[in-house]
């Protein structure tokens, strides 16, 4: 397996409460990895450790290593903004920045100074809106407020915005749970298209979504990784009793 992210001996605490217990996993490159498990099992926490978002919450502690291409993102000399540029996040609810549609997509490229002139910014904005499947809907009103879009469109805008900083990895924290079924389907389809170029890690609590998307599955329970492996194996032939119980809907 071509490992992109390797998590080693990871422990995480909220205050005194341990949220992750000695997590050791490998996430394959250019595939969709789905983290699943009952609520409160630590799947969102695990996701947040991958782009160093956990440290934004007060009173959290982390030990262990998260290696992206064998480089520890928690090492002292690592620039956290570079980590988050390489590891993008699609949040549960879309939160467009207080700017126009155009500026939302251009924002990340601006702060990282990724283009030199207006024309190439415009081309890039168009390019990423197309990838997110939004260009046809917003191409003629790029300077409208991003909040004028529907929730489903906003989520695709957030996807375009995240892709524009050219990450290698896309994290999704239940990225379709706030959307209506058709928008959700649309976002799922985009994610499947994207795995050709990106490593994708999704947290979901819907088993059906996991089955639709996953190439690789991580099943968690009470802060521990119970089972991890290729989707076919885990879904058809779970090794652990707990995973089997979860797959059979006993939660």
């Amino acid at each position, binding site marked *: 397996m071509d490992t992109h992210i390797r998590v080693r001996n990871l422990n995480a605490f909220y205050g005194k409460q341990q949220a992750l217990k000695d997590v050791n996993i490998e996430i394959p490159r250019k595939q969709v990895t789905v983290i699943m498990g009952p609520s409160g099992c630590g799947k969102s926490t695990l996701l947040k450790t991958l782009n160093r978002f956990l440290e934004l919450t007060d009173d959290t502690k982390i030990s262990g290593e998260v290696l992206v291409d064998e480089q520890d993102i928690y090492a002292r000399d690592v620039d956290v903004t570079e980590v988050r540029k390489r590891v993008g996040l699609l949040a549960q609810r879309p939160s467009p920045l207080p700017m126009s549609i155009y500026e939302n997509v251009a*924002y990340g490229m601006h702060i990282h100074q990724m283009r030199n002139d207006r024309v190439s910014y415009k081309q890039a904005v168009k390019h990423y809106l197309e990838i997110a499947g939004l260009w046809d809907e917003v191409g003629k009103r790029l300077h409208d407020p991003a909040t004028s879009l529907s929730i489903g469109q906003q989520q695709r805008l957030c996807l375009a915005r995240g892709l524009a900083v050219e990450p290698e990895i896309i994290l999704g924290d239940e990225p379709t749970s706030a959307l209506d079924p058709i928008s959700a389907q649309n976002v799922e389809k985009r994610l499947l298209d994207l795995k050709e170029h990106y490593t994708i890690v999704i947290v979901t609590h819907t088993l059906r979504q996991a089955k639709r998307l996953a190439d690789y599955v991580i099943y968690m329970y009470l802060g521990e990784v119970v089972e991890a492996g290729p989707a076919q194996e885990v879904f058809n032939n779970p090794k652990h009793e707990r995973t089997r119980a979860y797959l059979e809907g006993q939660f």
Partner: protein
Amino acid sequence: MMKKRWQRRHLIEAFVKGLMIVSFLIVAAGLGEILWTILVQGLPALNWAMVTQVPQGGFYLGKGGGVLNAILGSLYLAGGGTLLALIFSLPIALYLETYLGDSDWGRYVRLSLDVLWGIPTIVYGVFGFIIMLAIGLRASLLAGIVVLSLVELPIMVRAMDEVIRRMPVDLEQAALALGSTKLEVAVRVVTRQMLPGIITAILLAFGRGIGDAASVLFTAGYTDRIPTSLMQPTASLPLAVFFQLGTPYPIVQQRGYASALILTIIVLIISISSRWISSHLNKYTVK
């Protein structure tokens, strides 16, 4: 069955609602009385000369002229003071929220600002005057602007601080997730999202600055001429009101009320126009 019965909790609601209405009426009556007084007393004396001329000889005895010196003086003083205060307030407010947050230091800074807010402005005036004596600066537009900016600073910072604290966490995190530094979040996202509130904060401080007499009494002085440089003394509307109401002549007193009316109208115009501007600027604000 659905008929209304007068239970205890309905009575309590009616009582508290009555209390709110009475409170509102008391305050509205006070405000109405003030506006009524300056309108009735001031309108007869308000004419074109009042707003286009400076005082002529014998103005304070009832002869011709106007208070253009005080109108422009007040605009210069409050405009300059607000601008100066803004230059310092916005960075302070952003620093407070972005880097200090609810830490001990953050709380000390907020406490000292609240104390400064409560200090009578005459104390600022005297403080400014002592500094001026020490460095040999005479009563001037510059000194008035500096002291007014000190008066306005705590109000502006605290008002902005309260606004910025209401910044939605999701929005900040969205920007951080793209690899923004905290500074980029503060300058590019928070400031834009909170612009309407920031403008309100500026307005609040401006209102206090333009209406204050005590702080400019020693520091800006008073003169019948319009200042042409920062080093010249300048008149101001609150002091114009004060001096004119202090004379024994009814016609001059009326002009005092007219000056108060002008001051009120200026504040009104600036409030309405900045609200208009901010409602156009907040097109992109995330609700």
